[in-house]
């Protein structure tokens, strides 16, 4: 297991290094010593962008993993099942009511609406027959789609369509120093979930097991939903909705290493970060000097990896 941590850490460091040197403005390793502008570029744009992709990817993968445990279904993730859309709705409402609102206020309200829509999703899922696991992601897609449509409609009425496209379609090209720092809060939130890793793993075994091991089922679920909502809201506020990471990464890790979150959550975070950062780098290179949005790249890459994994024989550590 340790060697997988090392491999993950190494891959992430390598991608971060590449990410610093890839972009429209040419920058080589040697420039760091010769050209003071190069350091400025890194400080203002390349480093923030890299960090933003790492944090957003890592935390969304963790949020997806926790959500899959809470809902006990492997095909859900916050960004498609209403949490992300709920966050966008919150930001939109704040923007309409108090256009001058600080980003912090936007983030707070977005977390609250994200929590409300997640609770709504859970309430619906509880009524579904456990024998039909595929209903859950389907309902999630419809539910998330409905809230997303509401967001678009309200934005259309308020003439804010351009605004919301930033939140609904995640992108890292706009990330600059001073505009992404809230993501550190998401990183802190994801780190905190690690302390409850055992509890989420236990909740994943069902309400009966959870209760008989002396845990308060509802309380653990609520704590998990709060973490998921906070992470989603912070991501949507700063970089927008990034789909797929939260779905694909936890599935891959679970298939390879099982569901003992205390051991696997660090891997989930590292792989989510690497996948997102790698997709962002690829998006910068594919149609250079133009950019392909990270969500598009992730969709293609994620689907391909997922298919490959489905047909591969699983191995557990």
């Amino acid at each position: 297991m340790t060697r997988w941590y090392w491999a993950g850490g190494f891959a992430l460091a390598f991608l971060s290094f590449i990410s610093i040197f890839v972009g429209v403005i040419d920058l080589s390793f040697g420039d760091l010593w010769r050209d003071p502008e190069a350091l400025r570029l890194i400080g203002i744009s390349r480093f923030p962008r890299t960090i933003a992709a790492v944090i957003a990817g890592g935390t969304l993968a963790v949020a997806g993993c926790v959500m899959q445990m809470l809902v006990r279904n492997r095909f859900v993730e916050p960004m498609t099942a209403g949490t992300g859309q709920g966050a966008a709705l919150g930001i939109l409402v704040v923007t309409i009511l108090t256009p001058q609102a600080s980003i912090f206020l936007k983030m707070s309200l977005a977390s609250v609406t994200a929590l409300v829509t997640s609770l709504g999703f859970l309430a619906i899922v509880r009524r579904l027959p456990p024998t039909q696991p595929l209903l859950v992601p389907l309902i999630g897609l419809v539910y998330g789609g409905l809230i997303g449509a509401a967001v678009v409609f309200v934005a259309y009425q308020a003439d804010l369509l351009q605004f919301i496209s930033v939140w609904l379609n995640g992108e890292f090209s706009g990330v600059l120093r001073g505009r992404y720092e809230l993501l550190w809060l998401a990183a802190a939130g994801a780190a905190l979930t690690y302390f409850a890793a055992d509890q989420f793993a236990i909740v994943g075994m069902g309400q009966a097991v959870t209760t008989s091991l002396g845990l308060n089922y509802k309380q653990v679920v609520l704590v998990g939903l709060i973490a998921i909502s906070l992470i989603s809201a912070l991501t949507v506020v700063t970089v927008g909705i990034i789909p797929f990471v939260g779905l694909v990464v936890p599935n891959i890790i679970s298939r390879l290493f099982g569901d003992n979150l205390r051991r696997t959550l660090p891997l989930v975070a590292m792989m989510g970060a690497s996948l997102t950062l790698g997709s962002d780098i690829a998006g910068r290179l594919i149609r250079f000097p133009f950019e392909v949005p990270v969500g598009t790249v992730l969709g293609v890459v994620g689907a391909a990896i997922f298919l490959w994994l489905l047909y591969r024989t699983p191995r557990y550590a």
Partner: protein
Amino acid sequence: MISIRNLSHQIGGAPILTDISLDLPRGKISALIGPNGAGKSTLLSLIARLEKLQGGSVIVGNLTVGSCSNRELAKHLSILPQMPDQVPRLCVRDLVSFGRYPYHQGRPTADDEAAVEHALAVFGLTGLAKRSVDELSGGQRQRAQIAMTFAQDTEYMLLDEPLNNLDIAGARSLMALLRDLADNHGKTIVIVLHDINYASRYADWLVAMHDGQIAVEGAPAQTVTSDLLRDVFQTDADIQHIDGLPIVMV
């Protein structure tokens, strides 16, 4: 002792249990028998606070179910549910380790680890410790689940049809182990069984349920009769006595 008083339970308006009062003796094995749908699993879930009590009271030792702390109860009472809702993707050792959670809350001590290794050894799972539970055979999986309950090491153990999927060697050694736990370690065990012969051979006390009520209770030698089979199970089977034990000729 587990004392149940005037316990009633309904699901969606349909009565599942009606006015059950029952004392299950301390340090003994009590077997719950009865036809499918009699309410055995419901009774066990209520004792183990997996379902909310609607009417009546349950006292386990000196803890009142419903008002005592959940975590405190988890150190005194464990339950093996009839069908774990979903097979977890955990290796056998990790699954069994979660049985220790009420004690260590995520930071296992050397004692906890020793208890896990002991549970693995007792159920012949040491060789399978690294295998994922969802890749085991039905009986191996059942043994892993029981090992988890065993690792919880509680004074009261509720086991809902633990013999499911076990081969005859596994079933006999489990019953012998339960006997040892009751006789030499003071554990109080409540076990749901469908094979009445296992009940009369290994249990101290027999409780037969029918339609959400207690039909008969008593020592197996007095309780297992052809009347019981006819009235409670609606079946006619011969009963022979071997060494004073009633054996149902299936």
